[in-house]
């Protein structure tokens, strides 16, 4: 008699474990982010948070999801209606400010107001049209600049040979120049810009205009490196600038002059530190000689220092 009872109690225990594990699985599913999507209260709470942050578009979206989940809650309808009115009022004011800015010729301010309008209401047709008008204006202006470059290039290159290979070469040349001359992010990506210029000049060594531009850009970098005390970089930039300017006497003279100025600056730095830091002075003078190997004063200083 005892055995069937024991078996029955064991069976009941296992069933309880089984049911419990199933419930736990269900709970896990319902309590995570996944289950939260079905809970209107969660949507309302995130909508409120977005509203507090000023992201009214997102807030409205989330209130609307909450309404889809709970059509009986009048508070959600009220929140949606309140937010819609708030957005309408804000966008009305922003559009007014945008138009005023356009009238005053303050186009970038106007652009900001219209962008703000669309961030509140992505369906705002008037803001989209106003922004497009501004974009048309600025795109046409930059296109005019581009066409001017093309006209200059066309005059400079004259009539080119016909035939698909030559035409293709001409196209590659033109696009390569365009990409460089139109680089809007030049100051932000100066190293990439120099790299592009060097590639172009290597491929088209007879493009004097871009060789001059490369040389000028490298000179600018050399000065920047010099001011930062990076003398090896300075030297490297100057050498590359010289290479780009080869054959251009005027440019080479300018670079030589800059070399001498940098050498002089390092010579003076050496003189100033010669009393307290003679080793450092020697470093400055040796560096100065790299910029201007002919500088007699610096050579003399080094000789004197070494004989001391």
């Amino acid at each position, binding site marked *: 008699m005892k055995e069937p009872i024991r078996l029955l109690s064991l069976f009941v225990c296992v069933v309880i474990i089984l049911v419990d594990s199933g419930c736990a699985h269900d709970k896990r599913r319902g309590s995570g982010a996944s289950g939260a999507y079905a809970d209107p209260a969660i949507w309302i709470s995130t909508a409120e948070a977005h509203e507090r942050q000023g992201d009214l578009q997102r807030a409205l979206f989330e209130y609307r999801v909450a309404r889809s989940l709970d059509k009986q809650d009048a508070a959600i309808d009220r929140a949606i209606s309140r937010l819609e009115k708030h957005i309408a009022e804000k966008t009305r004011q922003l559009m007014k400010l945008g138009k005023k800015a356009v009238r005053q010729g303050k186009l970038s301010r106007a652009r900001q107001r219209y962008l703000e309008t669309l961030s509140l209401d992505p369906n705002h047709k008037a803001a989209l049209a106003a922004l497009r008008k501004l974009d048309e204006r600025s795109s*046409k202006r930059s296109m005019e600049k581009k066409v001017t470059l093309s006209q200059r290039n066309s005059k400079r290159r004259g009539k080119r040979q016909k035939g698909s290979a030559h035409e293709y070469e001409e196209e590659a040349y033109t696009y390569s120049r365009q990409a460089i001359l139109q680089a809007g992010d030049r100051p932000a990506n100066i190293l990439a810009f120099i790299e592009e210029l060097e590639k172009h000049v290597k491929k088209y060594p007879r493009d004097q205009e871009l060789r001059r531009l490369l040389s000028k850009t490298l000179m600018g970098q050399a000065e920047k490196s010099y001011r930062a005390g990076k003398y090896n970089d300075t030297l490297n930039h100057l050498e590359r600038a010289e290479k780009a300017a080869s054959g251009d006497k005027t440019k080479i003279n300018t670079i030589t002059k800059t070399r001498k100025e940098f050498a002089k600056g390092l010579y003076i730095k050496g003189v100033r530190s010669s009393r307290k830091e003679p080793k450092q002075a020697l470093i400055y003078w040796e560096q100065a000689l790299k910029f201007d190997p002919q500088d007699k004063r610096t050579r003399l200083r080094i000789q004197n220092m070494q004989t001391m």
Partner: protein
Amino acid sequence: MKIRIALILCLLLGTGCSSRGFYMTEGDAGPSQVIAKDNEFVVLRVGNDDARTLAKRFFGDEARYWVIEDANDSHPVEPGNVIIIPLRDSNPTGFGYEGYQTVPILCYHRFGNRGDRLEVSSEQFREQLNYLKENDYRVIPLADLLGFLKGERALPKRSVVLTIDDGHRSIYREAFPILKEFGYPATVFIYTDYMNNGGLKTDEIAAMTESGLISIQPHSKSHGNLAVRRHGEDHKQYQRRIRREVTFPTKKLAGQLGQKPRFYAYPFGDANDQVIQELQANGLLLGLTVQPHANAAFSYPYLLHRTMIFGDRDMDVFKSSLVTYKSRKK
């Protein structure tokens, strides 16, 4: 005792089986279950569905699967997950609180290994498309931009458009097989004097368009610069030339493809008001330049920006051209 052990083993085995029977697993999740639905949203618990089957069911178009993915981006469309399906296009311009969506249009020319700046090797092209695929970029046809530029239709997040200019035969030989491999659409802009004359041949064009991936559009007749007057060309001659360079290839392609072209890429990316007017007179809806940077919903459709892809640039430069979102505070 033996009976007791056998019973316990049976029950323990049953636990595993019953777990499959009662609760959803990835292999057998059952049908998706609608929790709530009105004219704006469907909220459902995902069963045996993915974004594509749900898009087919709720939008009648599985290609719009991205609407569901983008609406639940922090929340994958997986069995057991509750997701939302927006039934209305509430954000057709791609504007958010911090910024707005932009669409980069990439501009290729020819494919091969000659080491020219305008030439991209097959290996590079494959690596670039693979990067797009691996990083969740969605390559969309140029035509999809139309609704976005009207502020009427949203685009997938991280949308990118591929275009190829001129109509070199290497497009068919090298780029087309790779595009097919990835299933990516592209627009090929052809200057018609080059067709069957060193450039793409009629049967190659037909094979590409029949694939449904390639759209052929005009890139002028002779590839002369339309914004620069030729030496000794007077105003009337210039006007005539512009008209011919826009009208002729548009009509020729319409006749050949049985479909009126809608887009035009300016040779050398150069245009002016007269050229734009000519495009409009020919019913062309978009004009593409080679001015770098990506396009927003408010971009002027006749001066769309494109980023040139040069063969001697590395992957970092390629990656930096994929700007799909811009802060509005800049």
